[in-house]
């Protein structure tokens, strides 16, 4: 495809909230692009609204009535004179209809085409596409409707197997089935949950790879068919398929395997006709065999670790690719000489089955210091609403090697101090200290297998907060009732 003159964006609509909206605003400012964000009722005083140049009220707090209302978002972008829309992750980021609506409204959608999104949104179609591109995929059965099918498949490929929602994503709607007698109940449950979560009940099954690691490759594609990859990321530390810790590069891959997989990724992205940034996710078995599982047609939460080691701003590149700027880097120019780790700080209580913890952040000490990056969407005094994802902050550390990055992460986690909501920080600290994590001996079951150990911490509020609470109580009552 011949190169054309890149379009210019003076104003960008960010169809998201929280840390990813804030992180995108920062890149826009570097590029001299003005930003507009949408916000819901409960987000009126949120950090992304404060940070952005302009903001538009979208609607009530539930996401379906604000951030996920396509007509409202497109209208807000047009009314404010934006030339482009950046979807972030979650919300409408993988919604082909939204991408189409943007295009129809004359807005540049910063991401792949709606056709690619639609195809990647259907897990069965994705697998077919990847298989056609010559990528090894996990043995599976598309469109499962009966337990008998599952039992037959399980016998063929060996138990356990895993049920996934066709419309699933972000790790939700997956159910492991260990034996034939569990099949019926698991299928019913999976269909009902898929229906509730995604509005579609179709599911499929795959062989469950024991001891597998979740490793993904970041790639960048321009509008002219040029594709490079930015290396791999290790995302095996997850709980119920929700990633908690990510790092780059993976401690499992050697250069030969990394290059081999990288070639596969680039080839697949070209065949798909992908533009901007995306991710191809693999499961890597203990025997180093790798199986592609899905393509994420959007920016990912963990893009930061790649940025930290390759020195490139992935969102900046997405914007450039989307407006038609050609990719100027060659694959050989991407050199990785350091190691980065990211920890996700979620407002949830790991000790209480990771139940969401929302409320007011009454005190906040963010992390700082050398070789550490924090992306967050919160500030002291802010409210964490119950309506959205519980991710409140991402802490990223970088070092010349993995041990150094771990040391810096431990330091950063200790520095992070938040009052008012419970977070994953104590759990993340336990992970950073766990001998199996430190030595790189883990797979995707790491958290489930070690959960009891990892939760064996005493979460204590700051002593000074507790004492202040006491003084407040005695002051309000006028005298101490405990000693009288």
């Amino acid at each position: 495809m011949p190169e054309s003159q890149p379009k210019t964006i003076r104003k960008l609509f960010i169809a998201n909230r929280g840390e990813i909206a804030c992180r995108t605003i920062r890149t826009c400012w570097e590029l001299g692009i003005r930003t507009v964000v949408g916000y819901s009722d409960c987000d009126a005083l949120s950090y992304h609204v404060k940070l952005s140049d302009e903001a538009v009220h979208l609607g009530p707090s539930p996401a379906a009535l604000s951030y996920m209302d396509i007509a409202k978002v497109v209208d807000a972008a047009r009314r404010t004179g934006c030339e482009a829309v950046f979807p972030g992750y979650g919300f409408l980021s993988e919604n082909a209809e939204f991408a189409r609506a943007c295009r129809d409204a004359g807005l540049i959608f910063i991401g792949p085409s709606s056709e690619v999104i639609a195809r990647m949104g259907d897990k069965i179609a994705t697998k077919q596409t990847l298989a056609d591109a010559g990528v090894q995929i996990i043995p599976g059965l598309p469109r499962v409707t009966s337990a008998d099918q599952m039992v037959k498949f399980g016998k063929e490929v060996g138990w356990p197997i895993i049920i996934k929602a066709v419309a699933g994503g972000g790790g939700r709607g997956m159910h492991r089935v260990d034996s034939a007698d569990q099949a019926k109940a698991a299928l019913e449950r999976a269909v009902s949950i898929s229906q509730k979560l995604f509005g579609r009940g179709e599911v499929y099954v795959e062989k469950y790879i024991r001891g597998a690691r979740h490793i993904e490759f970041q790639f960048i594609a321009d509008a002219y068919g040029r594709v490079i990859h930015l290396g791999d990321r290790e995302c095996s530390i997850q709980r119920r398929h929700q990633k908690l810790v990510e790092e780059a590069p993976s401690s499992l891959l050697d250069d030969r395997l990394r290059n081999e997989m990288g070639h596969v990724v680039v080839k697949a992205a070209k065949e798909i006709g992908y533009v901007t940034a995306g991710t191809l996710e693999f499961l890597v078995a203990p025997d180093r065999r790798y199986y592609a599982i899905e393509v994420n047609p959007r920016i990912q939460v963990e893009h930061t670790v790649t940025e930290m080691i390759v020195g490139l701003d992935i969102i900046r590149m997405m914007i450039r690719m989307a407006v038609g700027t050609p990719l100027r880097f060659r694959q050989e120019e991407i050199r990785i000489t350091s190691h980065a780790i990211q920890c996700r700080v979620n407002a949830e209580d790991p000790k209480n089955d990771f139940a969401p913890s929302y409320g007011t952040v009454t005190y906040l000490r963010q992390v700082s210091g050398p070789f550490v990056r924090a992306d967050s969407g919160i500030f002291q005094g802010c409210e964490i609403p119950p309506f959205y994802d519980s991710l409140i902050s991402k802490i990223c550390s970088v070092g010349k090697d993995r041990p150094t990055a771990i040391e810096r992460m431990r330091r950063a986690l200790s520095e992070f101090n938040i009052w008012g909501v419970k977070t994953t920080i104590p759990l993340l600290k336990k992970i950073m200290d766990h001998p199996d994590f430190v030595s790189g001996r883990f797979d995707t079951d790491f958290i489930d297998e070690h959960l009891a150990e990892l939760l064996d911490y005493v979460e204590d509020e700051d002593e000074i907060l507790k004492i202040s609470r006491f003084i407040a109580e005695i002051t309000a009552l006028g005298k101490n009732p405990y000693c009288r």
Partner: protein
Amino acid sequence: MTIHPSKSPRENVAALRNDRRVYFTNTGPRDTGQSDYKNRHTLYDLIRLAPFYNRSGYFSIENHGGARFHQNLLQNMIDPFEEAILWKERMPDVMTQTLVRSTNLWGYRMYPRNVIRLSVKAFLPYVDVWRCFDFLNYVPNMIPIAEEVMKGGKLFQPAISFSVSEDCTDAYYRKVTDEILRISGGTESVILCIKDMAGVGSPGRIAQLTDALLQKYPDLVIQYHRHATDGLAVPALAAAARAGVKILDVTDDPFTRYYGHAPVRAVQALLQEMGIDTRLDLPGVDKAAEAITGFIGHYQEFESQFRGFSYKVTEHRMPGGAFPSSFEQAAKGGFLPLMPYILRGMSNGNRFIEYFDVTPGSQITWTTWAGIIQYHYKEGGLKQVEDLLDLCERFIARGQSLDAFRPEEKEALLGLYARATDDLKNLLLGKYGPLPFGWPADWVYQSVFGDGWREKIAKDRFEESPLAKKSDEEIGRVREELQKKIERNPTEEELVLYLQHPGAVVDFIRFRTRFGNTTVLPTGIWFDGLKAFGSEVNFETRGKPNTIKLISIGQEVDGVKHIVLSVNSTMHVFPVEMPSHKTVQKAGTRFADPTVSGQVASPIMGNVWRIGDKDRILKTGDIVKEGEEIMNIEAMKVETAVLAPGHGVIREIAVKLNEAVVEKQLLMVLEELPPEEQKRTRRSKTNKKTR
């Protein structure tokens, strides 16, 4: 030779024996605080005395044990371990001392032997001198403590409970001392304490007893513990020293009131004039006094309701350490004016049932007589109270012979203990040990146990050691119980505390979880909080300075006041629920009790969007299977299924559909069905269908 905590008990006792000087134990931090200030002294104030005590030449500082232990957990919110450790750290050159109540340790129940041993061992590193008494002078009750203390290389100080009566003769105390020395390995490594807890020993009586004991055991090192209640403490202490007592219990001058101990400077001055040398470093003593003068004003509110010495103590024998708690209870119960009558009743009671009025005996005496006097006051006013007391006194004068009285008087006397507490009944059945001077007269048993009193004595009264009959506590089970209550693994220290004071410890741990270690706060803030806008409190945590300043106090709205504090230069708003509102709140939101089976708690904060599972809506009376989904809570788009904890029938559904619930809120009450019942219910259900 000098006394030092680092030396063995044998070396320290030898040093005392060979020293012509007289030593002092300062009881200020523990017993004086208990006797005159209701144990309310804060650790913040007391610990400031440690550096002065450390260089004042005291034999020991009594900083631990007695009622302070419980009070610390109950109202001072001080961890007894933290307190003991802090004293040990700040006072490395002087011995720390505790008071332990034989089988009752630092509590109010008799504990099994394994609990006693575990608890003693836990405190051994921080306590050098272990004063141990038994309120019946029943020496076998001291054995587990004696063994653990001596094995642990600490100084065992057995005490004889001292009183003045016809039975409390020199011969009696020599006999008790014989038994004590038998379990203590002779006189070599122990100190014998004469524990005059009520303050009733006249100078002559104490000199005589000391002499009697030293005649028999010339090498015995004796300490005299004495309360000041009768007003004769200073001369009695001096007489004891002249008779050969080596260590005297005193307190700092500004701590002295009426029920505590004699002032150290007066005793020291008198001894000096008598030609008895002491080892005190007076400037150090005075420094401590200065510090106490600076803070003692905070405690006026907690000083005794009745002030002044009372020679009548020689009759009613209420121990100094029990006065304040009795006053407090009488004031709170609104019967303070009856105090003189209760004390008069006690003077009679100790003629009917003889034991020593010290924990737990003093509690039994107090509850018995406070009960009797209040009962008669309510029934017939002061007149009836006075008549009863007159009758008791005439009864004693007639040698407790019922036959000498008219039928209605006889009836009144036999009705005296009709409402006896279980503790009194247990005492009379020997559950604490045999009484020191034999069982009381039959009429007492008749009064306490009614018609079946003879069988009761024959069947249930026993003479052997009560400890031998008490089986060991299952420590593992208790640990699990505590773990359930505090929702985390308890520390060994918490377990030791819980074994003695289960209720208080759980509340204490909850307080600490919510409010942290409040002992860093200055006493005025601890008692009353911040008063004036702009006023601030400064204190250190781990060497780091903190400043908390009061910015504003909001108006009470819907039972909540908002307090704005500047905490280390950051503003914070604290909503405080006012007590009037709290009860309403509690009635509104019910929380599940994790210790009660069948109460289903909400695992998270969220919305109840389904009661039952997708196939069945549940209602009261439905039967559920273990593991069945009985409710579903949604929060942040995540659904959490609530599963039935067991097979049972739903007795109550405590929430409504779409109700917002908080973590641990009560969702449902299940009544578990026994296996038989399950079958039966299922069958009856089927039957109904067929019909």
